[in-house]
């Protein structure tokens, strides 16, 4: 028995949707990575480019929305196709939010002084690398329909929480040493929090991939690491 749809154009529409989502994913990855670099290197020249790339991501989001609406109305998808369609809708929303958070981080670079001490940025850098790895892994799990890998990402969000806590502590330490640091330290705190929230969206995507593959939601509550009280 063939795995292709009898109606070729249906097959093509689903493939087109998957391709769009993968492209949106890789765009979101580059943007997150660029924004992270900009913060760590206090690279003010790249801010505009990052803000611009967020517009691209938003365009993808509305393109995917339209594709999904068309699929729903034309094909009334069932079973795996229904899960594929609905999952694309959810994943594209999470990617768009990650894009917004990256944009927000890029904007935080502007007020930062150029001579930030390495120990302050070290923990933030580690957090950023972990979040990027998580995004990369979750997108891989989507492409390969890999339940175990998605679940691994879901479990690893605990580490994102822990690193967020550590990064926050080092910023607060720095801040408490000299009140002059207050202004830009606040920006660093927000940047750290943004990364943690990006991690949460990645966890959402991991849950969606698990549902897409197996047709059932992960049981139990999300693993939680140390949390800074809001």
């Amino acid at each position: 028995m063939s795995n292709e749809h009898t109606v070729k154009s249906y097959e093509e529409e689903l493939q087109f949707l998957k391709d769009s989502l993968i492209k949106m994913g890789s765009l979101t990855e580059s943007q997150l990575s660029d924004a992270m670099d900009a913060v760590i290197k206090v690279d003010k020249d790249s801010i505009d480019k990052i803000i611009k790339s967020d517009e691209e991501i938003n365009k993808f989001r509305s393109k995917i929305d339209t594709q999904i609406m068309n699929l729903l109305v034309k094909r009334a998808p069932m079973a795996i196709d229904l899960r594929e369609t609905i999952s694309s809708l959810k994943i594209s929303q999470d990617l768009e939010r990650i894009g917004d958070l990256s944009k927000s981080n890029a904007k935080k670079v502007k007020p930062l002084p150029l001579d930030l001490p390495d120990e302050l940025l070290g923990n933030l850098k580690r957090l950023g690398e972990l979040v990027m790895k998580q995004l990369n892994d979750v997108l891989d799990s989507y492409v390969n329909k890999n339940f175990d890998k998605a679940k691994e990402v879901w479990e690893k969000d605990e580490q994102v929480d822990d690193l967020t806590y550590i990064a926050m502590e080092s910023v607060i330490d720095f801040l408490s040493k000299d009140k002059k640091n207050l202004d830009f330290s606040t920006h660093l705190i927000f940047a750290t929090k943004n990364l943690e929230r990006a991690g949460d969206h990645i966890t959402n995507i991991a849950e969606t991939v698990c549902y897409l593959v197996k047709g059932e939601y992960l049981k139990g509550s999300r693993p939680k690491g140390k949390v800074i009280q809001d």
Partner: protein
Amino acid sequence: MNNIKIKSKNLNVYYGDKQALFDVNLDLNEKEVTALIGPSGCGKSTFIRCINRMNDVIDICKVTGNIEMDGMNINDKDLDVVSLRERVGMVFQKPNPFPKSIYDNISYGPKIHGKGETKSELDQIVENSLKKSALWEEVKDRLDEPGTSLSGGQQQRLCIARAISVNPEVILMDEPCSALDPIATAKIEELIDELKKTYTIVIVTHSMAQAVRVSQKTGFFHLGKLIEVGKTEKIFKNPDNKMTQDYITGRFG
């Protein structure tokens, strides 16, 4: 979970040398709608025809295995088929009213089954059946007109009223909406929702969307075998069997 109304065990049907059903084990719950789906010739209609012994009318047809209603063996040679069909009504793909008045279409069944001795009792049955099939308001002033003068959708509701008139326990529907427009289809589906409070319903349909809308349980047949049966929601969101998935998603070659 409702009680099991109809139970088939290792049910086999042969038309001459050709086997049409293979060891079908399928339970139908009371006061629930079960949808049977599958490509043409997969055995779904053959299966429902076992429930009211419609296969009896085909000389070369042989049925083996077990099929029961409330524990009663439907295949029992001594079973009174007329009284079985009083308990198990049927509605077909094409509306097939008798070439008689609307009134007679409905009163005919109760009359031959000895229900409704007086005119007023029959009037009551006709009115109730038409009300239950959501047709009363449309035809109450023209009960003398021929059933065939109604629109397709109305004729199908007339056939449902005719099936209800003898107060059955089970209603079999073999693609009841395939000849109807979307509005008439919606009315029948609305009616099925109402009827399931009273009757056990089995519907054969080629429309997946209809199966999802009207049924609580769905069975998928392929080449005479029941491939998968389960809660409708599960079958259409996340079926266990790859063949079921291929069929409902339109991947069947």
